[in-house]
C-alpha cells in the first residue's frame, strides 16, 4: 500500500468505534495453514476478532496465492501482524512508558527475526519437511499444475530471502540453536511475571503466544523445535495461561484449542 493510503486508512480506522464485523480470513486450519501463518493469525485473534472464514471465501477472485492473514473491516487489509494492529486503531500497549515501549518493540523484532525466520527455514528449506508437509499443504486448494508451481515458486522466494539475510548457509542445528537462544532471552525477560509488561497483555505477548503456541502444537517431521521451547517452563505456563484466559472463555466451539 502506498504511504498516503496507509496513513489515510489508519486515520479512518482510528476514528471509528471498534467494528463488530471485523473478520479474519486465514487458510484452512486442518489442511492448508502453515506454521508461520498460523502464528500470525493467532496473534491477531487475541484482539477479539471473529475467525470463521477461509481464504477461498474472499469474493471475486479466481486464485490468490496469499500467505498472510487478511482482515476485513470496511476495507481489505492484507498484512503482517503489526500492520493489522496499526489498522485496528487501538493499542494494547498504551500504558507503557517510552523506555518500555522501546523494549517491547525490540523484543518484537527479536521474535520476528529469530522465531519467524526459523519457522520459515524449517518449512521451506529443510528437505524432509518440505517434501512431506509443506508442498502438499501449500498447494492443497489449487488444481493440478498450479499447486506444484506455486509451491516451488514460494520455496524459491523463501530461499532467496534466507540467502539475502545470511541464513542460506545455516544448518538445521544452527537454526535450532538460534531458536534456543531466542527462547532463553524471552524466558529471562518474562521471569515470573504473568505477562511481559505489567499485568496486562501487550502486542508482544500476542506475538510470542502466537509463535510459541504454533510451534508446540503443530505436527512436523521432527519435534526438535518444540522440544527446544518445552525446555523453558515459564514460557509453557505463559502459553497455557493465555490460552485459558482468552480462547476458552470466548466459548468458540470449533476454534477452541488445547495445549497438550
Amino acid at each position, binding site marked *: 500500500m502506498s504511504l498516503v493510503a496507509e496513513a489515510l486508512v489508519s486515520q479512518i480506522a482510528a476514528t471509528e468505534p471498534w467494528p463488530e464485523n471485523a473478520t479474519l480470513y486465514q487458510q484452512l486450519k486442518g489442511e492448508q495453514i502453515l506454521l508461520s501463518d498460523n502464528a500470525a493469525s493467532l496473534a491477531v485473534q487475541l484482539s477479539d476478532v471473529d475467525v470463521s472464514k477461509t481464504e477461498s471465501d474472499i469474493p471475486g477472485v479466481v486464485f490468490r496465492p496469499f500467505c498472510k492473514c487478511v482482515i476485513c473491516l470496511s476495507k481489505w487489509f492484507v498484512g503482517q501482524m503489526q500492520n493489522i494492529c496499526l489498522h485496528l486503531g487501538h493499542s494494547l500497549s498504551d500504558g507503557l512508558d517510552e*523506555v518500555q515501549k*522501546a*523494549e517491547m*518493540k525490540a523484543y518484537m*523484532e*527479536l521474535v520476528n527475526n529469530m522465531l519467524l525466520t526459523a519457522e520459515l527455514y524449517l518449512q521451506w528449506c529443510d528437505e524432509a519437511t518440505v517434501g512431506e508437509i509443506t508442498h502438499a499443504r501449500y498447494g492443497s486448494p489449487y488444481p493440478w499444475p498450479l499447486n506444484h508451481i506455486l509451491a516451488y515458486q514460494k520455496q524459491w*522466494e523463501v530461499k532467496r530471502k534466507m540467502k*539475502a539475510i545470511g541464513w542460506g548457509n545455516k544448518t538445521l542445528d544452527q537454526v535450532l540453536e538460534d531458536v534456543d537462544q531466542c527462547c532463553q532471552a524471552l524466558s*529471562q*525477560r518474562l521471569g515470573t511475571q504473568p505477562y511481559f509488561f505489567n499485568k496486562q497483555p501487550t502486542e508482544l505477548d500476542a506475538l510470542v503466544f502466537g509463535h510459541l503456541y504454533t510451534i508446540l502444537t503443530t505436527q512436523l517431521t521432527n519435534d526438535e523445535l518444540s522440544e527446544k521451547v518445552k525446555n523453558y517452563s515459564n514460557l509453557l505456563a505463559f502459553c497455557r495461561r493465555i490460552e485459558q484466559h482468552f480462547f476458552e472463555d470466548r466459548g468458540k466451539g470449533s476454534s477452541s484449542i488445547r495445549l497438550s
Partner: protein
Amino acid sequence: MAAPLELSCWGGGWGLPSIHSESLVVMAYAKFSGAPLKVNVIDNTWRGSRGDVPILTTEDNIVSQPAKILNFLRKQKYNADYELSAKQGADTLAYIALLEEKLLPAVLHTFWVESENYFSVTKPWFASRIPFPLSLILPGRMSKGALTRILLTRGQPPLYHLREVEAQIYRDAKECLNLLSNRLGTSQFFFGDTPSTLDAYVFGFLAPLYKVRFPKVQLQEHLKQLSNLCRFCDDILNSYFRLTLGGISPAGQETVDANLQKLTQLVNKESNLIEKMDDNLRQSPQLPPRKLPTLKLTPAEEESDSLQRLSP
C-alpha cells in the same frame, strides 16, 4: 589466547577506523573486551580476500560473520558482557535484532542504493581499495546485494517498487534512532559504565552514519539532533580509538596536518604584524602625554597622539 588474532576488514576515513558497519562492530568489541587484534586493512593489492569481510583468522580457524566472530572471542575469554545480568543479556539480543531490522535497511540504502551518495562517495571509496579489474565489478555487486536485501526483507509482494519501500524504511530508521536515544538517556553506555556488546553494535551502525560526509543526508540530520547518541559515538572514538587513528587513516592525518600548517602560518603572520607594529611604535618620536585635549592639532602631532594611545 596465545595465537595471534588477525582481522581483515575495510579501512577508515572521516575520523573512523573503518566505515564498514560490521568491521566497526568487531573492532569496537575487541577494544572493549581487551582482545589483542591485529588489524589488516584491505587495500588494493591482491592479498587477502574480500569475500565475507570482516574475517578473523587465527592459526587454525577462519571465522566470518560478526556474530560468529564475537562468539569466538567470547570463547577465547575476551568477554565484554561479563558484568551483565541475564535480563540485560536478553535485552542485548532484542536490541540487536531491532537494529538489524529497522536501522540496517536505511543505512544500506544511504550507502549503497541512493544514487547520489553511491556514485559520489561510496563507489569511489571502495573502488580505490580494490585492485583494478575487480574494482569495476565488486562495488556494483555489493550495491545490488544491498538492494536485494532491502527489497526482500521490506517489500511485501515481490512486485513492490523501491520507492514505496524507501519512505517506510526511513521512517522505521528514525523511529529506531529515537528509541535508542530514549533507552540511552543520559548514561554513558547502554548498561552502566562499562561498554558491552550492545554498545559495540550501536556504535558500529551509528558511527558511519554520523561521520561520513554524504550529499543526501536526511538520516544524518535526524541523528545529529539526537545529541546523546552523537555524544556516545564521540566518547567511544575518543577513548578507544584515538591512539590508532593516526596510523589507520592517512587521509584524516593529512587533513589534520594541512590544517595545522594553515594555523601556524596564520599565527606566524600575526606575530610578524605585531612585531612590525611594535617596531613602528618604538621608532616613532615620543611626545609627552597631553593632559588637556586641544581642539586644533597639527597632523604630525595627531598621528603620534593616536600612536601613544595605542601603545600599552
